[in-house]
């Protein structure tokens, strides 16, 4: 067999200069994503966090309004007025909570050594609780994307509580059903009130409630910018949460 001669004249140049623009962009994007991930795990990437919340590849925000919440983590002072407002508005019993504030101590940090992290149901786009519920007692509202409860259908198997990556659910003995945050839909939004009780009660403007499908909203603007890091909790669960965190 005679080896084929190399045609040096017509060989394709394989230097980075010859790469098409899209390829280069893709490569850079990948680099950004990797460095973002390596910088501590919690910072997802230097690209917009919006990717994390995409419900499907076809349509970015399928719900109108696509309710979501942005939390300015550093503004929280743990005054618990949000928790109080939630309990009052939604009749939450003393043994349960729909929202709470976690405390993180960083003794080695320079200056401020404690920070507070408000948590609530992440109204996930791929909610494991909804997938697991045997009787559709919990479901994702087709219009606004809120993960709702139909109390009378709840059999109390607690699969949703086990499934939730955010510990956002508890069993309410009084109503004989699992209960959770519904962005105050039953108590406020359905009655025409524009925001949730916790967001309204917060004196430090930690919680910004809004519509992620509305490009004019603060939530949209913050989630779709790249100057400031915006993150979600437990992105690895693949649930595509709708509660975003930032500092500022």
């Amino acid at each position, binding site marked *: 067999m005679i080896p084929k001669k190399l045609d040096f004249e017509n060989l394709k140049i394989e230097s980075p200069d010859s790469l098409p623009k899209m390829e280069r962009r893709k490569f850079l994007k990948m680099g950004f994503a990797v460095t973002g991930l390596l910088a501590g795990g919690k910072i997802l990437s230097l690209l917009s966090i919006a990717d994390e919340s995409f419900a499907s590849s076809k349509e970015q925000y399928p719900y109108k309004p696509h309710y979501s919440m942005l939390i300015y983590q550093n503004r929280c002072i743990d005054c618990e007025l949000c928790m109080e407002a939630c309990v009052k508005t939604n009749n939450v019993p003393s043994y349960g909570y729909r929202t709470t504030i976690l405390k993180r101590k960083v003794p080695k940090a320079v200056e401020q050594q404690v920070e507070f992290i408000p948590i609530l149901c992440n109204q996930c786009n791929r909610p494991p609780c909804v997938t697991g519920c045997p009787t559709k007692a919990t479901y994702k509202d087709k219009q606004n994307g809120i993960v709702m409860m139909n109390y009378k259908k709840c059999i109390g198997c607690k699969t949703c509580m086990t499934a939730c990556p955010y510990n956002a659910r508890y*069993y309410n*003995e009084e109503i004989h059903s699992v209960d959770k945050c519904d962005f105050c839909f039953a108590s406020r939004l359905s009655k025409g009130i524009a925001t949730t009780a916790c967001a309204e009660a917060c004196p430090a403007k930690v919680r910004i409630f809004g519509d992620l499908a509305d490009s004019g909203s603060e939530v949209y603007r913050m989630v779709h910018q790249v100057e400031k890091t915006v993150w979600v909790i437990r992105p690895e669960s693949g649930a595509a949460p709708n509660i975003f965190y930032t500092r500022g």
Partner: protein
Amino acid sequence: MAEHATKTQEVAEIAIPTKWDIVISRFTGLSKSFYLILGLFALMAVAGIVAGLHAMYIGFNHAYNVTREVPWGILISTYVFFVVTSTGLCLVSSIGHVFGVKDFMPIAKRSVFLSIVTIIAGFTVIFFEIENPFRMAIYNVISPNLTSNIWWMGTLYGAYLFFMILEFIFLQLDKHKIATYAGFMGVVSGIAAHSNLGAVFGMLHGREFWYGPYMPIYFIASAMMSGCATILFFTYLAHRVNSEGIDKLVARALEVTTKVGILAICIIMFFTAWKIITGFVGAEGKREALMVLLTGKYAFNFWLLEVGAGMVIPLIMYILSKGRNMKMIFAGSALMIFGIFFMRYDLVVVGQIVPAYYELGVSEYELLLSYFPSIHEILVVLGGIGIVGTTFLLGEKIFNAHRVEEHEHEAVASHLEALETAKTEASR
């Protein structure tokens, strides 16, 4: 005339005792220990049911130690334990009754009976775990969620129970062909239901310890292991209860079941080893949970009960028994059942002890969570065991020791004879 008629009636009654008379006669003249053990199991069953009802009355949050963070406790794991056993018994019985391997036939009837008994015990335990069981009956039917593994598991287990009862009834009526069809449907729905039970855990993508395709496969393999141990345990026990020796046919059935048991234990050992090894390169949460199992709070459960009592010692005993030393097989099986109970417990509990916000490093969830069952929960578990014990003993008497029919007996005997002739010819 009338006097004459009564006399004939009397004579007839004396001459042909009814089926009930025969069944009742089997309960008379038994040893004291039989009544004592039966009474003890019945008492356990009643105590469990009373404890469950009491827990319902005062509220599960007061009676049980499950929490918001660890919502599934010993009742879920015991339910898993019973239904895995049931599926396993169904699979073992199907080898003989459905797929026609004659060697397994002598133990098949008892297997079918026990598979019904164990799943009923499982359903009883889960009845006292679910907060609103009555709603389940309604909304499972009118509001089914087809993406939910719990829904599929519940529905398919319902179908499974139906087919197993059907199979058992037709076996009693000696209608083998239709019993085989029912048995086949039982196997299909049982495997489907059981893999869905595995998927209940495997599909929870927020729980690293469980998440993945491993669970459904593991559950099926695990069922075989449970099924073999349970039928070996109860067959030996039944012969003691009925004060009978083990005949050649049953001995052969136990020998081959022991062999299947050895294979099943090896498969589960293999699964367990790889689950641990792969777990160490996974997410942080999974590693933490595994460390608790291997070196932490659950290390005793894991090494002594799961590995020691559940796998290694029974494996050695099964091998040493050569499938013939009945006492050794019985002891190995008893140890194995005991170990498997904790296998299920660890699987359920350890899967939840890493808090959702553990990796966030917050003060509230710095430590791993803990769970220990309450008295109410333990009593309900004992109730489940009581149900199995009581119905097993009653079943032995009511169904006349689950004896094989005459023609079946002949078929199996001639099969064994043929086997032996083939063996001797081969050795020549």
